[in-house]
């Protein structure tokens, strides 16, 4: 189906169109998840077992953070490691003992990379032995670029964490129990997805207002505070890219998953809360009013983007949720990107996207799996969207061609979940529009010097 056909497609009963391209696109390597996870899990240490390439990426991508005594490091593989002249076990033991001595973490995460995959380094096999020998938990996550993209790194780490039963009751949860009268009786609910602590509190409070008690978060602030997860517990994700974690919780821990849209944007947050309430058989209170209130507060931003078009080149897998929110806010979405692996996990979100398109009477966006950046730039040239949400590799060249861009990685690091932070998303989305409105007087929009 060509682009114009999709744009002109007014037959709203039609299903969403999925297209698949070459997969030749720019995204961050999934090992970048250490950047936010080491900050989230305060007593952790992340050891990325890879080459100089991985190290160089982390060093440059994380910029200033690298100098703040980070709790992550590279175990840089040398030629001897690749050709198996050195013993993996002994080498890793030496490094982990050094980390234990210098930093004394409660847990060490080993992040497997492309290289450990290719040379088939048996990290999962080595970890339990070494763990016993140095008496420090070691968790293995294979966040490599062969299988995953960017935020899916978090998925591999959380899936690995989900497999570790936490048997100790943490203090945090015991304290919480005292105020049980605030809550309605329901089966335990555990939320998964790494989000900053203030946002954790905000979402926990939103649920508390419905009488729902959050028994724990995966991940927690500290490794020792990981929630106890039992068979029959309910689990629900807050990030759209956590399908492996969901599967692990379902299959390995026998939890029941609540498939809901994600709490991004007021519409998403409300749908998320409602779905949880429905599953827990609780009558939701005041959510419609709460949602409307948030929309009203964002009026100034919405008037800026209403009727404007947006194109997601796609890299962080937040695209479906963001597109759904922006559609609701009045934008037209030309194209967005999607990973087929997580189709099932995102089912509810996709449904909401469809519903939103119908209600707003706008055409469905093209949904591309494995995009091809070159083709996308071609389409951007044709479609001339008002805003392109893209990675940094394309942002400056597109701006030089007079196309407004928003750097997509910022959505990963900004606080975007819940009612409270919906305005943050619009703040990000409208920033290029607001900036360029102010600069218009300078003259030509296009600054390309050659080519």
């Amino acid at each position: 189906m060509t682009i114009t056909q999709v744009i002109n497609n007014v037959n709203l009963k039609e299903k969403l169109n999925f297209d698949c391209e070459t997969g030749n696109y720019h995204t961050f390597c999934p090992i970048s998840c250490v950047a936010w996870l080491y900050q989230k899990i305060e007593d952790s240490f992340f050891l990325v077992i890879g080459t100089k390439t991985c190290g160089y990426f982390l060093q440059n991508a994380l910029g200033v953070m690298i100098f703040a005594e980070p709790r992550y490091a590279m175990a840089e593989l040398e030629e001897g490691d690749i050709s198996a002249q050195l013993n993996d076990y002994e080498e890793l033991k030496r490094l982990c003992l050094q980390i234990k001595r210098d930093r004394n973490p409660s847990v060490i995460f080993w992040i497997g990379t492309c290289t450990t995959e290719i040379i088939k380094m048996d990290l999962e096999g080595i970890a339990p032995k070494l763990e016993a020998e140095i008496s420090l938990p070691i968790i293995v996550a294979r966040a490599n670029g062969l299988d995953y993209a960017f935020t899916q790194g978090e998925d591999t780490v959380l899936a690995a964490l989900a497999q570790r039963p936490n048997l100790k009751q943490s203090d945090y949860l015991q304290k919480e129990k005292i105020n049980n009268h605030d809550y309605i009786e329901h089966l335990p609910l555990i939320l998964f997805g790494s989000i900053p602590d203030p946002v954790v509190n905000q979402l926990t409070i939103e649920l508390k207002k419905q009488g729902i008690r959050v028994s724990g978060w995966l991940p927690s602030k500290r490794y020792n505070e990981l929630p106890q997860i039992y068979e029959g517990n309910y689990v629900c994700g807050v990030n759209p890219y956590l399908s492996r974690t969901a599967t692990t919780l379902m299959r390995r821990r026998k939890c029941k998953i609540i498939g809901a849209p994600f709490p991004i944007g007021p519409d998403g947050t409300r749908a998320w809360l409602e779905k949880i309430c429905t599953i827990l058989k609780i009558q939701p209170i005041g959510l419609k009013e709460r949602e409307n209130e948030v929309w009203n507060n964002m009026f100034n931003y919405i008037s800026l983007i209403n009727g404007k078009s947006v194109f997601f080149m796609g890299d962080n897998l937040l695209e479906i949720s963001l597109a759904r929110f922006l559609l609701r806010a009045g934008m037209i979405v030309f194209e967005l990107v999607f990973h087929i692996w997580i189709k099932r996990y995102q089912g509810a979100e996709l449904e909401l996207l469809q519903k939103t398109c119908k209600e707003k009477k706008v055409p469905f966006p093209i949904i591309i799996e494995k995009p091809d950046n070159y083709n996308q730039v071609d389409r951007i040239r044709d479609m001339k969207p008002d805003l392109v949400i893209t990675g940094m590799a394309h942002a400056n060249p597109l701006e030089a061609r007079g196309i407004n861009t928003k750097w997509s990685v910022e959505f990963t690091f900004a606080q975007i979940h819940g009612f409270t932070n919906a305005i943050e998303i619009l703040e990000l989305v409208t920033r290029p529009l607001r900036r360029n409105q102010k600069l218009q007087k300078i003259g030509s929009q296009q600054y390309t010097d050659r080519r």
Partner: protein
Amino acid sequence: MKLAYWMYAGPAHIGTLRIASSFKNVHAIMHAPLGDDYFNVMRSMLERKRDFTPVTASVVDRHVLARGSQEKVVNNISRKDKEEKPDLVVLTPTCTSSILQEDLQNFVNRASIETQADVLLADVNHYRVNEMQAADRTLEQIVQFYIKKAQKNNELDINKTTQPSVNIIGSFNLAFHNQHDIAELKRLMCDLNIKVNTIIPEGASVQQLKDLPKAWFNLVPYREIGLLTAKYLKEKFQIPFIDITPMGIIETASCIRKIQYILNENKVNVNFEKYIDIQTRFVSQSAWFSRSIDCQNLTGKKAIVFGDSTHAAAMTKILTREMGISVVWAGTYCKYDKSWFEKEIGDLCDEIVITDDHNLIGDLIAKVEPAVIFGTQMERHVAKRLNIPCGVISAPVHIQNFPLSYRPFLGYEGANQIADLIYNSFTLGMEDHLLEIFGGHDTKEVLSPTLSVNNMSSEIKWNFEAQSELKKIPGFVRGKIKRNTEKFAEKKQLKTITLEVMYEAKEAIS
């Protein structure tokens, strides 16, 4: 395995990509997993490039792992050939493809049958060389390829230009202050009446490479990238090259004298001595500046220097020979260039450090406690933590080291810039004096939980004389002196601060 938080030099493929994307109309295809194309981000962000970075990945994923790349690489090369019509496609191996050991050369051979573009496989081993070595080799490889091609097609013109001319080998993206340096070198050549034959690789097209032999000599401003090419051209066409980095007044002069020598060898009689003299004494300000009174304060101050071998060596020379500053130790992370580095500055500093371990450098800095550090962005951060001023003189760098304004490090204007950098890195002269008189930078203990002066030790009174003396002290150190004196008074259990107490305090602290 090596525990590493930070590295000075990047992986090999970055070097290859820097060279390939510096040329005009050359496209690089990386044989790499998803996410390894981070180079595009760096080029787009650090250099704020307006064009799309001509680098794409032929993605290595699970399927490739299972079945090999098969047609994928070849298809990607011919696709780029059609889309972008490049002159050359450079297939770039990464750490991943190094261990997959696919026959990339075979892909290149097959692809080049179909493509309009030339196709090359970058000859770099990820596990043996770093970014700089790879860049050096890739540049040589591309030059060699096009010289041979021109030879084969009988297009090679080895007749020298009528006017003395030079190739500048060492212009590339993501390098430290490079475009300013190149502009400065062009200006210098113009002053010396030397025609610039070609500048490679930044902005050059591969067609220009066959003109390289027409130059009288080659100038390689940076040791790290370009020497291999210059050596090849010398071997093949007997083109002499100059590898003296014209950084600082003295080295710029020796570079110019070397040019003079080469021209005279070729029976063009020139004498640049007058030019050097005028530039040094009047046009450039740095020689006079280092003789001016203010710079006396710098005499014998302790500095340490660390960076790539070009910049660290040149900086050490400037500090010791031009500014009279003593370099306690100087070092480089270019370990493979150890002997040259030692030879160049062995007698200019107390000790030489060759390492790429930033922890060791950090510890050494802490041990020496220099008055100033000249290093990379890493040393700048160490300096911040230790509260020591730092000037950045070498890659690796951040976005602020790609300034918009004219900031060369080479040539006579470069000397001015460096003089400013050195001077501004030190605590300024007058401030330095005052701090020395009144007890240094370090506030050892704070008396009360608040830092503001007014809330402090209310019982201690300043008498009239002491107060007016305090007012004479410049604002930026007054608070500190007030605090130090009050602390002293408190320790001595004095209720009133008189002039005597003030001076006693000064003595006690200094």
